[in-house]
């Protein structure tokens, strides 16, 4: 007890020291003013004192859980157990789908627009989930493919008046093509190298979009991109929004079905095996280059496709929408939600995109909380909000396999 108290006091003093120059002193070298915010010392001291207790408690709990796990105990949360119950899962999905379908009828255009943004991130998250969650390849430049899709539509629509429906698959395919082209030379690279190279791709794309003015209109972007057409009908703003909303719902459902099927396919299992142990995988005869490339290209396909929807939803695109920050947000959706878990990714997207919309008051602190929660999540809940359900095969005496995935 006393020991803990002493420890917390030390932590508290350390943090007061650590934050002193940045939190107490504020120098304005423009006006030659110094502001001393002494009160902040007290806040830091109290907060770090209390947080250190919480920190230790959480770490201890994590240890306990780990121990239980090692002894073969059940550490799944109630939610997790509920999700593993198949019939319940189907019912829940049905309810969700109905709720999603009536949503725009109940809420106004603004709410629907925000929901469309969230759904766009759901699909992006699911797409990146193929790379990061399933195949274990960290992609820090995922937004590049999103941008490629959006610009493919923007440019072709501007010059040749190509419509949305035509471009939806084309955008995906162009994204996929770029995924193959870019992915090919870098597949030999191991995880961390891959991360930095993909980050480089993201930055290269932005520079190219900014500078290749004759094709991309440079930093001023492309405006007046067509909204998706519906048999040539002239829709009002409200109806258009609802229309795009339904397109997005369809796309989300489509993505979920495809990724779910992929997960349990031959190639999906190869991805997961590759994620767990590359060397063992190659030894088992899995073609690493092809498997990795397929994951990379498929992830890029989704990003490209959804880029088309994004361009046609905002009707305006410029390079500023495709920055590293976007890649980081998509990545955190995947990580926060739970790598490899479809439901987790959906939940992650809703939390990260909708909460800031509704909590404008906290918008200043949004990125701060965002960064901190990424770290905390990794420490205390590395599997994310909902961990990926793993196909488990039980061997029960006789040759009877029970799939309780």
């Amino acid at each position, binding site marked *: 007890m006393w020991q803990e108290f002493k420890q917390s006091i030390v932590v508290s003093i350390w943090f007061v020291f650590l934050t002193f120059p940045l939190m107490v002193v504020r120098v304005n*070298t*423009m006006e030659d003013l110094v502001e001393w915010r002494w009160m902040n010392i007290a806040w830091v001291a109290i907060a770090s004192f209390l947080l250190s207790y919480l920190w230790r408690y959480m770490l201890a709990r994590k240890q306990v859980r780990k121990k239980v796990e090692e002894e073969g105990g059940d550490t799944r949360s109630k939610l997790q157990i509920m999700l593993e119950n198949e019939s319940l899962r189907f019912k829940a999905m049905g309810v969700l789908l109905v709720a999603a379908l009536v949503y725009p009828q109940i*809420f*106004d*255009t*603004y*709410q629907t*627009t*925000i929901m469309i*943004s969230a759904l766009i991130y759901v699909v992006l998250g699911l797409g990146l989930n193929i790379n990061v969650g399933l195949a274990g390849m960290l992609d820090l430049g995922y937004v590049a493919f999103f941008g490629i899709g959006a610009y493919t539509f923007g440019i072709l629509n501007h010059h040749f008046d190509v419509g949305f429906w035509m471009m939806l698959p084309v955008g995906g395919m162009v994204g996929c093509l770029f995924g193959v082209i870019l992915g090919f030379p870098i597949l030999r690279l191991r995880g961390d190298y891959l991360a930095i190279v993909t980050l480089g791709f993201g930055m290269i794309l932005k*520079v190219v979009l*900014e*500078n290749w*003015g004759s094709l991309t209109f*440079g*930093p*001023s*972007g492309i*405006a*007046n991109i067509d909204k998706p057409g519906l048999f040539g009908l002239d829709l*009002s*703003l*409200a109806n258009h*929004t609802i229309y795009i909303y339904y397109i997005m719902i369809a796309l989300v459902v489509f993505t979920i079905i495809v990724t779910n099927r992929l997960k349990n396919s031959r190639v999906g299992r190869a991805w997961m095996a590759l994620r767990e142990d590359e060397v063992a995988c190659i030894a088992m005869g899995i073609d690493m280059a092809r498997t990795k490339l397929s994951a990379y290209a498929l992830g890029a396909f989704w990003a490209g496709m959804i880029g088309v929807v*994004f361009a046609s*939803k*905002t*009707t*305006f*695109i*410029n390079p*500023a*929408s495709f920055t590293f920050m976007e890649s980081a947000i998509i990545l955190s959706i995947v990580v926060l939600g739970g790598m490899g878990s479809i439901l987790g990714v959906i939940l992650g997207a809703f*939390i990260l995109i*909708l*909460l800031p*919309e*509704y*909590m*404008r008051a906290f*918008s*200043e602190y949004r990125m701060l909380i965002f960064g901190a929660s990424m770290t905390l999540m990794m420490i205390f809940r590395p599997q994310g*909000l909902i961990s990926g359900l793993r196909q488990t095969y039980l061997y029960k005496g006789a040759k009877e396999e029970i799939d309780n995935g």
Partner: protein
Amino acid sequence: MKKMTVLISTLALALSLSATGFAADTIKLGVAGPHSGDLAPYGIPAMKAAQLVVKQVNAKGGVLGKQVELLIQDDQCKPEIATNTATKLVSDGADVVLGHICSGATKAALGIYKDAKIPVMSPSATNPALTQSGDYPNFFRTIASDDIQAKLAVEFAINQLGIEKVAVLHDKGDYGKGFADFAKKYLDQSDKIEVVLFEGVTPGAMDYSSIVQKVRRNKAQALIFGGYHPEASKLVSQMARKRVKAIFISDDGVKDDSFLKVAGDAADGAYVTGPRDLSTIPLNAAATAEFKAEYGAEPGAFFQEGYAAALALLNGIEKAGSTDYDAVTKALRSEYVETPVGKVKFDSRGDAEGVGFSMYKVENGAFTELK
């Protein structure tokens, strides 16, 4: 935690819903711009200007006998958020909109207002295409467009400074590259001057020593830069360090006290364009005094333009006798109104007549207007 988030989002939902229940007997003035994030300093002054104007107008009995209601929405200057913001304002029933602040966000949002037939007036979006493309008949602005700045800078370099070789640089951004492109266009039209270098620099790069050396190598007598003050300060400091003597000419994005402070002595002798000095206009003095009385501080960027836009929009409705789209836009184009940026009406494209730029010179750590 999860329950908490659900609770909060439901609450927020309920709140935003109840806010949409409206009464029809007010005039709704939407205000959109960055009110949070790093660009907030550009949006908040215009928002406060609108609040001051509305307070005054309502105290005098409102417009057409109705009270004016403000609908304020944040767009963080991001195009993708601006479309959400615009949708929100449209669905809340805004009659006219003051905003947006950034050109990109404005461009993204304008289509939505156009479809909903709402006149929009920006105090700060200077992108020339907004009015010149003819795509947005519902768009007006109380600030001059970038090409006028570029033209002023080029003419100044040729006629006043007698420059024969010039380097044009930009920050690869919407605003900076736009300015640089226009400058190049006007420079190419003149045969007295030659563009020896046209390039973009990377904002946030560690230093610009290569590009500064390149300016010297090409024997440019002047450097026209399109962009904002952080890059401009870096450029002029490095030019001073490297003993490059080219005269620095730049735009309104650089006419900021930060430029003077950060670049220090190196800024001396630089020229920048900026909105005309408005201190002689009586209404401007009154508006500034009003702001100081209310908030106890100097108003920030685009306060006068925002104030002017709010006055012009409400005047348009008053003169039109209704909030009907066609009547209001017609009134805006035909009726003069006294504002802090002068007595203005709008031309057929939506630019304010009688609003313009001046050239400023940095002397002894201050901007001096050149007549």
